[in-house]
């Protein structure tokens, strides 16, 4: 039972990170109908920017965990916003009209650029970097279940962030504009919505979520790695698609579902846990065959 609790907690942490990334994918798809495949590496860029901020502040003798944490999050958010908006402005928007495949490949390659830049230009970037533990590391030991405060805090914050995004989209004028653009670009433009601005703001918003995912990843594992964004990106994409592109709830469901699949895969295949990703991706393929437009389907109407 306690063991089950531990698994649930591990899965929940993973699911929250995937969901944060997946929400980004789904937001971008909503306004531009594109997949921003470098999103995973934007997460990594955020984590490394946070690390730089930490190193700089420690160098100047700042050691209060609260201040450091705030600086890490701000630096991460700033970096991801810069990268995310630049990608949107100079890579995605100019080729909006090109085939989907081009956008996919351009952003994938952009991901490679970001990843290689971290590896080559971050000091000793090809090796994993230690990410400081800035949250209280104590916890309750409930038999086999070790419930840590930092995990609880991270989970809560992640949940709040997603809830805030949801409120932003559904309750504010900005959200209205985003939804309008998502529904029909042409009409939105004729209604006087500044299309480009809305797109850039949406990319900034998604990137902030990525920044938090990056910092969360760092704080949870206490280690970040230049290649961390690759798998995180693919999984985030898979989660967004699983849920149904353009749907916020879908992305969240998809994220937690994928984490659950991985965890179940590891538990159900004792001593063969290396197969857990094979299992998880296998289930994804089967689910796509059963529900070709995602679990919470994107509504598609055929225009004849």
């Amino acid at each position, binding site marked *: 039972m306690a063991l089950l609790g531990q698994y649930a907690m591990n899965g929940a942490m993973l699911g929250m990170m995937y969901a944060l990334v997946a929400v980004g994918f789904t937001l971008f*798809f909503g306004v531009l109908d594109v*997949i921003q495949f470098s999103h995973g590496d934007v997460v990594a860029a955020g984590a490394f920017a946070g690390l730089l901020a930490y190193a700089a502040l420690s160098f100047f003798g700042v050691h209060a965990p609260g201040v450091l944490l705030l600086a890490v999050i701000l630096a991460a958010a700033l970096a991801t916003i810069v990268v995310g908006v630049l990608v949107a402005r100079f*890579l995605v928007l*100019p*080729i909006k009209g*090109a*085939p*989907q*495949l*081009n956008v*996919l*490949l*351009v952003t*994938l*390659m*952009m991901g*490679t*650029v970001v990843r*290689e*830049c971290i590896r*080559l230009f971050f000091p000793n970037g090809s090796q994993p970097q230690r990410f400081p533990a800035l949250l209280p590391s104590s916890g309750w030991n409930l038999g086999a279940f070790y419930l840590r405060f930092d995990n609880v805090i991270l989970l809560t914050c992640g949940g709040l962030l997603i809830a805030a995004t949801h409120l932003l989209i559904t309750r504010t004028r900005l959200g209205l504009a985003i939804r309008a653009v998502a529904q029909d670009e042409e009409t939105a433009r004729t209604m006087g919505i500044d299309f480009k601005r809305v797109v850039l703001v949406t990319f900034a918003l998604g990137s902030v979520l990525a920044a938090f995912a990056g910092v969360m990843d760092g704080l949870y594992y206490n280690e970040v790695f230049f290649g961390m964004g690759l798998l995180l990106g*693919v999984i985030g*994409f*898979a989660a967004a*698609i*699983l849920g149904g*592109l353009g749907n916020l709830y879908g992305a969240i469901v998809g994220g937690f579902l994928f984490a659950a699949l991985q965890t179940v895969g590891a538990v159900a295949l004792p001593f*063969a846990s*290396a*197969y857990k*990703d*094979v299992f998880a*991706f*296998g289930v*994804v*393929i*089967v689910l*796509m*065959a059963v529900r*070709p*437009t*995602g679990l919470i389907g994107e509504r598609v109407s*055929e225009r*004849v």
Partner: protein
Amino acid sequence: MKAAAVAAVATAFAWLLLRAESQTSISLLLLLAVAAGVAAARLRFRLSGPSVLAFAAVAVLALLLREDDFSLLLLTRILIVVVACLGLNVQFGYAGVVNFAGASFFGVGGYTAAILAPRLPHLLVLLLGGAAAALVGSILILPVLRTRGHYAALVTIAFALLFRTFLEVNDTLGGPQGLKLPELVIGPFHFNDPVFDASFYLRYVALGLVLAALALGVVQRLERSWIGVALDAVRLDEIAAASFGLSIARWKIAAFTIGNFITGVAGALSAFMIGFIAPNNYAFSESLILVSILLLGGIGNPWGLALASAIVIVLPEKLQTIQEYRFLIFAAVVILILLFRPAGLLPRPLRRLKT
């Protein structure tokens, strides 16, 4: 005549580039090539001629390089990648079925070859490599058929990741240590024996040329036939195609299967030539390189992808000074090309229907 002259110039250029050692001469040659390309684009230079010329040019090049093992190895690799991409071309270019698991099907061919080579005649093994790839592909047919766009992309991406991980954790297929292949023997030809005084790679070049010619023949025949017209219709507008009575599912299945077969045969030949296969060769990133070649060349145009394959394989080899920066530069170049030439280097010309 014009085509023959171009083929001769291209052969001479390729020979110079492959033999060039110093960074200055390589840079000069590359600048020259870029300038020629830009000029050709400006002057709207159109080239048409029999494909035999291109194959003759490659054969001449191989003979010129007969003692240079490394250049011949590169040449064979280009031919193999061209064949693999021709397979993908049927899927992406004609039927509009996306496949981000090209390297996986390439790998199925390679692994099939490694397992069957000790037991069966090798010519058959090459074909079975393709058949196995087509067979494995059939697992994906249902989800690929039912999904579109990004959803279909996810299916193949998931498969690519799954395939590599599966190879790595699975012991019966050699696991991460991979498998060794015996020497390729077809009829009286032992492929690892030297050809007189020249390199043994000459035989691989020859076989690569034969395969490329066959694949090109199949692909062009397909394009020019009513099947090609049907595939184009399916790609461009499924609903319109369906309302003209075309069975979308049938054509998509056909294109997916034919494409995987061709890619699988290429994978089998590649495994024979390297003599050793391991999961690392069939990672998702390799699939991406195949797709980049397709897009860089100009989707749907076999000559474009031949050009792109040559660039993608030769360039990193010739730019040794950039070493660890290679991937960074490769990615940046792909982005730039797609930004400024979204249809690729040699876009597919419009179909000219004879009346």
